[in-house]
């Protein structure tokens, strides 16, 4: 029975709408899960791209993240937000992949990234190269918190829930990551 399409799209991002979709998805409504996927695809992609700094890898990881979420949906603790649970999987999986990439000695130069970002048909064409450069100089954990704050526009509470820490700890992490980002950005400009 497909009923998720009957839900008002404005409700999808609310906790109630999200919970309703999760309930439907757990009961086997694939359309409900597809709606969750379409709702959170871009935010999840932003997290993966922000941490991995590579669009193709990020796309692959996003698919993996949603597959993992689909597979483990029954284990999802309903007291939490589905989005923070999903983003947590995305952060962990991306950091894991990023570390793996380091071991493989895969390096993405600034030129490669900028070319990829600017020339890619779906990417925004006005990305400041210094931003990319500064991001590439940061640690994955710093990139994760910056991505969650600036790209996904999560609250400190949600960032904390995603990173598995308190909102105060998230604030501290954000402050430090932002400071290192500012330094790296200024370094990239000079």
């Amino acid at each position, binding site marked *: 029975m497909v009923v998720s399409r009957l839900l008002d799209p404005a409700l999808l991002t609310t906790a109630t709408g999200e919970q309703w979709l999760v309930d439907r998805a757990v009961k*086997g409504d*694939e359309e409900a*899960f*597809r709606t969750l*996927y*379409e709702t959170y*695809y*871009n935010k999840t*992609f*932003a997290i993966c*791209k*922000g941490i991995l700094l590579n*669009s193709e890898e*990020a*796309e692959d990881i996003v*698919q993996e993240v*949603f*597959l993992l979420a*689909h*597979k483990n949906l029954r284990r999802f603790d309903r007291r939490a937000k589905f989005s923070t649970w999903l983003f947590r999987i995305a952060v962990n999986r991306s950091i894991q992949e990023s570390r793996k990439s380091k071991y493989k000695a895969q390096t993405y130069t600034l030129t490669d990234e900028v070319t990829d*970002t600017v020339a890619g048909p*779906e*990417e*925004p064409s*006005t*990305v*400041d190269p*210094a*931003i*990319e450069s500064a991001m590439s100089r940061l640690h994955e954990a710093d990139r994760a918190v*910056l991505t969650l704050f*600036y*790209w996904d526009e999560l609250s400190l509470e949600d960032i904390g829930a995603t990173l598995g820490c308190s909102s105060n700890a998230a604030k501290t992490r954000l*402050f430090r990551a*932002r*400071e290192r*980002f*500012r330094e790296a*950005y*200024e370094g990239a400009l000079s």
Partner: protein
Amino acid sequence: MSGISSQIDETMWSVVELDDPRALDEFAARYPAYRDELAKRLKLVRGMKSAIPHRPVPRFHVPTRGARPALRRPILVGSLALGLALVSFAMVSNYMRREQSPPAPPSTVNQLPKSPSLEPHQRKEVAPQTLPTGDGQANVTKDPDPPTNLDRHVTVDVKSAGLRGVIGQIASQAALSVEFAPGFEDQLVRATYIGVPAKDALADLGQNFGFTALAQGERKVLIVPALDPGRPVTTPPSGSFSEPSPVKSPVIDPGFSPKEGNN
């Protein structure tokens, strides 16, 4: 950031992240010394926000439920069947090996065949030092070794006691010292031996409660918590002995033994 108080620093970040012209103007007017820093941070935050990646959402192919379990199930069933087959094979081959092994030689000394029960509660009796022959007569075989402390007759009658204690009683009566090998497990037992050689009592206990008594010279016995099923039921030169009768509450009455009866 060095040179800027933490309060101003935090306010500046809040203002640039809000990106409200009025708030920016207000901050710049209030802290003119930080106009440049404000402009730098505004550029940074705007640049970061404008770099949000967007992709057209590709179609998500929901995996078919039960696809993986369907794959796993035959593997699981196959593994179980294979395990079962291996266990069955091992059991059958073990049984076949036992069937094919030659019977113990008749010239044994300490074979203790089951005797008819004398008591109403099914306690079985074992006659020591007897060996049934083919014609049904019980022959007494001679112990080739001279009498030792192990041949001393002991009497033990306990309704419920620790196995270690019972062995200790037997050893004490036969003036033997006992050493228990590591792994020996004590357990509650009921045992009645009346005037039987210590070695027979120990062998009978060992057969029933899973240990082997090994003679270490004339006055010492080592209790090893294991049975050797392949060993013939004889007293080897080393002096160890056992008997195969599985009697849980053994009663050995010398009156049933022709040898004892002759005495």
